[in-house]
């Protein structure tokens, strides 16, 4: 069985947020839900400042606090290491969200079709789309995935359920890489099988020192960072995203 992991090269990341865009298009996530989020940090005092960027997908922890607390088993750990959310079973208690130290869970506060960046009910928009909401809906997301055959792919499903980064399970199962990895113009994101010694992720982790976020909590994340350092008390976010629901 594969042991999927992501390696993020902080030296290469320029904070262009193409990964965030790719994720939104691929997974049809509603407004203000960022399954992939890129922190833009600033450190030091003028004129000695340093700006750096840190992409933050779901960490797909081996000892996932969110999967532990889910009262109905909608959040679970797959054998290949992906932490999946069964939107067909989720009751919307949001316990996973408070348990997660990384803040990667996003709740559908209202009907996702009413919460996209465009008003799909608008007359002018309907003329173009023919009433489809949203018109670019990815058909791959509708199939059940994994040995368990559960509805775990994509976002923007129902109001009142939790969704988060799936590592693009619908792509990974077809042998493709997650959308964020595929779209990074600077090859800062890498995805692959840790058990395969020839995979990029295994090679990178052999060659370079790495760290994982909040490792001290014992969550055993599957996302490794190379070429940088974890955010500290010195790291200030430059522009924060504001809630829009």
């Amino acid at each position, binding site marked *: 069985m594969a042991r999927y992991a992501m390696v993020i090269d902080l030296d290469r990341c320029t904070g262009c947020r193409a990964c965030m865009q790719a994720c939104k298009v691929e997974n049809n996530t509603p407004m203000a839900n960022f399954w992939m989020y890129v922190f833009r940090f600033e450190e030091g005092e003028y004129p000695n400042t340093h700006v750096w960027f840190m992409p933050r997908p779901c960490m797909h922890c081996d000892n996932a606090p969110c999967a532990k*607390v889910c*009262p109905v088993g909608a959040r679970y750990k797959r054998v290949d290491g992906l932490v999946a959310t069964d939107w067909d079973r989720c009751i*919307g208690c949001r316990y996973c*969200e408070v348990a997660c130290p990384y803040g990667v869970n996003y709740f559908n506060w209202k009907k996702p079709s009413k919460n996209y960046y465009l008003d799909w009910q608008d007359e002018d928009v309907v003329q173009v789309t023919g009433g489809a909401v949203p018109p670019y809906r990815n058909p791959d997301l509708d199939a059940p995935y994994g040995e368990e055959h559960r509805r775990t792919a994509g976002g923007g499903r129902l109001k009142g359920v939790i969704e988060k980064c799936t590592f693009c399970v619908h792509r990974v199962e077809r042998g493709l890489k997650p959308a964020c990895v595929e779209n990074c113009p600077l090859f800062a994101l890498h995805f692959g099988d840790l058990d395969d010694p020839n995979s990029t992720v295994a090679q990178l982790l052999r060659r370079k020192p790495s760290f994982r976020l909040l490792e001290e909590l014992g969550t055993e994340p599957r996302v490794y960072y190379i070429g940088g350092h974890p955010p500290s008390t010195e790291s200030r976010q430059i522009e924060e995203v504001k809630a829009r629901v």
Partner: protein
Amino acid sequence: MATRVEQLPYGIGRFSTRLYLLLAVLLVLVGWGIFAYSREFVEGLAMTGLRNIGTMGGATWGLYVSFVIYFVGVSFAGITMAALIRLFRLDHLRPLSRMAEALTVIALVLAAFTILLDLGQPLRGVINLFRYARPQSPFFGTFTLVISGYLFASLIYLYLDGRRDAALLARQPGPLRGFYRLWAAGYRDTPAERTRHERVSFWLAIAIVPLLVTAHSTLGFVFGIQSGRPGWFSTLQAPGFVVMAGVSGIGLLLVIAAVMRVVLAEREQLHEGIFRWLGTLLLLLILAYLYFMVVEVLTTTYAGHHHEVRISLSLLTGQFAWLFWGAVAALVLAVIVLLLPYLPPGLRARVPATRPRWALVFGAAALVPASLVALQGLNLLTVLSAGARSLLAWLAVALALLCFLLLLPHLSRNVVAAAATAGILVNVAAIGKRLLIVVPSQTHGTLLPYGDGTYTPTWVEVSIVIGLFALGTLLYTLFFKVFPIMEVHAAEEGAQ
């Protein structure tokens, strides 16, 4: 004798105009709550002030979860009374037994409702929580031990405890006779039956007592074992929940007992000794809780890492300071009130006699600026500037303190009023503390540098919570209008 037989005890079945008025007001409030929930059900939780933790800068658990804990905490009263009366043979507390059990049952029903209100998919919740239940989730304990086990045990205890009275009341003709017969279920109050009942209730009380600790601890564990949430992750969380549950539960029971004493004019049954005894128990629990609080704040501010410090500072001096210090003040004032019966007699004689009327005037006056500030805080009123707002807030505090000071001489002579005042104060504090447990760890406790969040409940959440309180009061009022709230008098037994 004939008139005496027709009159059921404790005002059962007698509905005065004032009572109808009360029921009408409560029904309107419940209806308003249902309307508010219908908005939430249709539009989703976007109608609430809850938002995602992290990039959205919000709290995903808020008022609802706080009130789940509060309601479960209040349900503490029932077990405590059962345990105290049966196991420690404190028979003089017996008149409170049924009041406490009814409070427990109704509080747990409200808690179950509140959990469903908080779910994004409530209909799924009802099914999936049973269908896919996972014992590994801390919620499992909430549903099995608290909502199911505790509620079920309390219902049975209430039923068994009331069977004798039902049998006695079923002897009299009346519209409720069938109901009492059903409740009595063949029980005729023979000596043999009575001893058997005593025995069963005793063992049931023993069986419920472990729930006293475990049930309230499970709710503490929902928060206490989340290593990713500074402010929650603490071994003191579970014991703190048990103690705070005791404080709020006994506090509310004291308020209810004081109201019953006045409404039913039962000064002999609900004598001052009860209030003095329970008041002292409440006092000890408050002191224990204050001790826990000091320990917690000292540990987190002195030795905690910067995330813990950030939350502590938001409580002590930051965004939540008004609520934190308000809750502390309420607890301290409750301690002062509960210490009044221990004034030396010489000192008490020198306290000037005052009427509570002026205190009540100031208290009512304090509500005006307080509600203005509250409306502004909920974004329902936007005319006040920040300066005017803080001025009004301090005015409310000053008026409330004046009210308290003017009330003190009266309270030092009236044990019942003192116990009820303390009960109200600790419940205000309990609600505040519950919010402070739930919210700051989400808005100020993110381990990645997301920046501080905010949480302001909307009119939907506030209306629903008010509706829940109205529903609880409604159920309670109706219950004691169809069933005796205390054991039927020994004198009336003799009359049969």
